[in-house]
């Protein structure tokens, strides 16, 4: 199931020309999950990430990839808006899917999601280096990540 939220879906500006330079800006994909409006904003790669839950608190712990490993973190930034229809309850952790459909888990969780009206969270997923990410999903609600890699 995928419910689009047109009001927040950013305009796709593919092929827009700016002073002679082709500027490709991908759409930030949005969807609604049980009264939470979720927008995937970016995907970044690193070997050191903050492990704050969502919405972010003050936990100072960071996770790292050890030098001997052939992994990296793919960090997906997700903006969250709590809509009036949100009824509370637990929100499952998101899963990241690569382009072959393999799922990856995150250490981070949604907690007290209604404690603020809007916030941005960075969920990090341990993946083999160079993994092509396709989408992030909470149960059957998916956000497309294509074109969001920096």
């Amino acid at each position, binding site marked *: 199931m995928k419910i689009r939220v047109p009001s927040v879906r950013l305009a796709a500006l593919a092929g827009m020309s700016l002073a002679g330079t082709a500027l490709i800006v991908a759409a930030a994909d949005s969807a609604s999950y049980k009264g939470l409006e979720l927008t995937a904003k970016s995907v970044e790669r690193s070997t050191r990430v903050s*492990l704050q839950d969502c919405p972010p608190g003050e936990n100072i712990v*960071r*996770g790292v990839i050890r030098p001997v490993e052939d992994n990296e973190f793919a960090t997906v930034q997700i903006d969250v808006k709590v809509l009036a229809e949100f009824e509370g309850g637990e929100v499952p952790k998101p899963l990241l899917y690569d382009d072959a459909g393999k799922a990856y888990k995150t*250490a*981070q969780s949604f907690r007290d999601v209604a404690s603020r009206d809007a916030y941005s969270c960075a969920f990090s997923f*341990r993946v083999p280096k160079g993994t092509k990410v396709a989408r992030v999903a909470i149960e059957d609600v998916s956000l497309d990540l294509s074109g969001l890699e920096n």
Partner: protein
Amino acid sequence: MEIDRRALFKSLGGAAAVALMTQDQKADALEHYMEEQLNAAAEDPVYPTVADLAAKDEDLTRPARNGAGGLFRHGRDGKLRELPPMPAKPTLEDFFEYRFAPASHVLQSANRALTTGMSEEIILACLLHDVVLGLIRPDHGWWGAQLVEPYVPEKTAFAIRYHQCLRFFPDPEYGYEYPESYFRTFGEDYVPEAYLQKTHDWLKNHEWYELPRLLTVNDLYAFDRNAKVSIDPFREIIARHFKQPEEGLGWDNSPSTHMWRTMIQPDRRL
């Protein structure tokens, strides 16, 4: 690097505490503070190697060895903690008040287990998993389990015993990541010793693997310096699962009673 003087003093226990420090202690504290701030801000922080840390251990003028428990070493303010006398028949909650306080990390960890719907055995394990650090630090999982084993469910002791080992092994299935702090504590190139590797291999196939693993997951999310969690939400769980001895902890006849007694009177000479 610009130093936030107020934040530095606060981290050391306030201006009064700083005034009591020697020049050497102030220099050490400043170096430590700057290292923390730099690492937090840096894109690509520099971590010590195993050899760097071993070289530090050769300093025999240190106030204590790395493994000394918190009750036996001074804090960052350069002073030993003041320890109030304990009640004649101390309960677990008395230990939280008089010896483990502020116990912020274990309380946060237990609170996360509570709010994420984990079992009461796990919540209790989270609450108790690091309290032995007042006594001793190396192999604190094994020591910590031994400390509470006579009084808690078997699953709780199991989780405490093996959480220390599992901290060295990331497990994406459960969402456990290798903590950056271990780069600083053990060295960036540290490889867990054979006894930890063997224990990990054995645990992976154990039917109770999940217990210490869930403890490590909660452990990661319990380092919020601003969080305030009291012991109140856990009083009922303690009452249900912790076998409080009538004589008081430290004065009963359990196999670990001497460990509690040592925490009651850490200045006892023999």
